[in-house]
């Protein structure tokens, strides 16, 4: 139950590599785990019409996003034989090269962790009310569009 309760997935600022390794290290005591699957979203310095993305500024409708994330978590725990699942999404300004999404699933055998991680990423992108604004080097900006 502790794994499934609605918790805040949002963190202010980029997700540090050290945060990721601490998360991994905590699972060394869970000796029924055989495989971990991790997805990391990194802010890309896309160049559009000669301007380069410097950062993405993320905002969300937090109350609704946490409700949706609770449902995603329940669905994935029901569908896959998972040991754990952790999700962190950045809010605020994340610079190009920094990490803005961290999805981490674990299971006894590899397949449930891998499949749940992939499905979780797809659902986060499709279902969570989160918006990214790309900020260019000339201080102009445009709203990010997710590709399916």
């Amino acid at each position, binding site marked *: 139950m502790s794994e499934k309760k609605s918790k805040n997935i949002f963190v202010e600022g980029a997700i540090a590599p050290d945060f990721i390794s601490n998360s991994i290290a905590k699972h060394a005591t869970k000796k029924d785990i055989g495989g971990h699957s991790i997805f990391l979203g990194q802010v890309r310095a896309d160049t559009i019409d000669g301007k380069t993305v410097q950062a993405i500024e993320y905002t969300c409708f937090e109350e*609704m996003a946490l409700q949706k994330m609770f449902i995603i978590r329940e669905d994935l725990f029901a569908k896959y034989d998972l040991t754990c699942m952790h999700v962190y999404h950045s809010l605020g300004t994340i610079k190009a090269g920094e990490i803005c999404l961290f999805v981490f699933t674990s299971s006894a055998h590899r397949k449930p962790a891998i499949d749940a991680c992939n499905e979780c990423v797809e659902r986060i*992108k499709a279902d*969570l009310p989160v*918006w990214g604004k790309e900020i260019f080097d000339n201080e102009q900006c445009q*709203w*990010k569009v997710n590709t399916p």
Partner: protein
Amino acid sequence: MEVLFFGQLTDITQSPKLTVAAAADTDSILQQLHAQFPALASATYVVAVNGQVIQHNTPLEANTTMALLPPFSGG
């Protein structure tokens, strides 16, 4: 009542939250908003009532939160 706006819709409304005259249903609120912000009428968005996306015109009760959500772009 209050209506929340997110993402690119805040470029149109210039505010994440507006107070509008109470109305019986979501379509009535949208009519008010489209009159006030013509650009909203051509924007792509879905409506959420109390955090649930609705597909059709929905009656509004007291203390309902209505929100206009442009396409999500998280991750």
